[in-house]
């Protein structure tokens, strides 16, 4: 179980085929929008980070639940390796500080 997230940024980027025509006009064939999530934690126990890293090595895509304008949504996401800044002990427990995860949806909506 991950600790409570400190900040979470949910956005989306357009997926489209963009072409400049002879006239200079830009036209697009829109495929849809791909949800992106950037989540940051103040700290995460080192063993959870290790478990997460192991999971990321095994699976390209993971199922993620996240807050969205329509309420809680979920989907399959590609997740980058976590970035961590400081390793330390908190009440005798090994933790990583300032952990961030960037996630990109597998499908477009």
């Amino acid at each position, binding site marked *: 179980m991950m600790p409570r997230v400190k900040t979470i940024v949910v956005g989306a980027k357009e*997926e*489209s*085929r963009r*072409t*400049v*025509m*002879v*006239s200079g*006009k830009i*036209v*697009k*064939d*829109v*495929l849809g929008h791909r949800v992106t999530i950037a989540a940051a934690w103040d700290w995460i126990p080192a063993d959870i980070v290790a478990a997460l890293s192991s999971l990321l090595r095994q699976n390209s895509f993971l199922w993620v639940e996240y807050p969205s304008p329509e309420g809680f949504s979920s989907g399959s996401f590609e997740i980058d390796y976590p970035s961590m800044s400081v390793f330390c002990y908190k009440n005798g427990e090994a933790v990583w500080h300032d952990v961030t995860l960037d996630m990109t949806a597998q499908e477009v909506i």
Partner: protein
Amino acid sequence: MLAVAPEYNPYADVRFCDILVSFRMVDVDAAALALPFSTDECPLSQIWQAHDLVEYQDLKLASLEQGYFKLDGTFILPKEDMKGIQTGWWSEGISGEDKRFDTPPALGFSWYENQTSVGFTLCFDDASGMYASLFRIRAYDLDGNLIQEKLVDNNSVRCIVDMPTENYRHVLIEFLETSEPWRRIRITEVLFGIVQYFNRANTASASIEYEFSPMSENLPSSELSLVLDNSDSAWNMVNPRGVYAYLQQSQPLDVWFYVGAPGSSKSWSKENAAYMGRYYFTTAAAEDDSMTAKITAHDSIYRLEGKKYRNGGAGQWTLLQAVTAVLEYCGMELDFEMPDEIASRLVGRNLPKDCTGREAIRLLSQAACCACYVNRNGVLRFFDPLIERPSVDAIDYDRMSAMPKIEVAGKVNRVELSVNDEYAGSGTETVYTASDIGTDELEQTAAFSNPVVVSGELVASWLLEMLKRRLAYKVNERGNPAMEISDVAIIFDAYGENRPAVITKQHFNFDGGLKCETEAWGGGF
């Protein structure tokens, strides 16, 4: 140009493109060769219609099952003579209050040859909404041994049963339960296979190429290439659980392209999309370490390549008679259309010995001074590729991603047409010429050979006239799927000449977006 719905907008600045491919992975001759039988059937039943390839019910026919026939104006009373009315097979037995049968009715099919299919599709009476909610399918081999069995829970009037079965001779479908109490089983059609759909969710890319030759120098076949998600390895040849064993050449694929504004994207249907034609499965191969698979399919012309025409002889006949005879000899059920004036043009009967059906059609078309191709409706269309027709579209600077490449073919002022009749005695060859050599011009000759030409001078003059139209365009554009080869479009160029040209080739590429490489044949120069 295809007729399109108002919401169809191929040139919207921001557009949504989509594809739909239906692949009928159905045993190509099982329906035609099937011998149906059943445990019982009611007087309205027409069991032979259960394998006549009609999948949908014409009418919501009234019958006297308890609580079924309502006086709401939607029901049609059956006539004494059911000729021309689709019913399919109806069981005599009616289910009870618990929806089950005392004696389960069964429908079966037998064949004199082994059949193989990737599954079965049961089309129940969609007009009445009656269907079986529980049934069992059993497949038997020649010796009556059970080779495959499946109990199916169903909740739809169209039930796809994923049940790959090889070399079966008999199929028995036993109906155990209906969706509502007091109902008959009504089967409109049983398909010996399944219809698989591909759309943007499971398609990596697709391309379609159409082409015709204005002078009938060749007879191109339209080609569909479809790159699919193969992450489950279903399309790998060596996968024993894959679909490869059930693929048969001639299984049809129908394709639709939709282009429109993004807002309308959710509601598109076949009716407001452009129908891109029917193709027949040719090959499938796994690609990219099996993550994708590529299906290739061609139109009917490709199937003519494998047929030989060996019925040539002396004499003449009309183009209509000749094309009818060639298609009949080749065993091709291919509709064709030609204006009366073209149909009555004379051509020779002396088609070369052992020429393919495809080559025979090409020679006949050229000898009749016309061009031909298979259009989106699967009709072999013969026509005069004249440029003097109204343009149906314009490929302007907003619609092309690069200026068109314009090629000017070398000037030809003389045509030699060799007509060799191998059926005449020792074989005679006559050479016809047409020329239009201007003062101080060097002679530039183009040579043609066509044994079935009757009016040699006329055909040579026609070829010379066609060769005078020397402009050829190649343009990369956004693509309007409703535009067809043989249509005339205005093509804008760097010099502002903006000439009309006949579309001779289109190569549509779909990868979530849509592009088209178009070639066109222009006027004189």
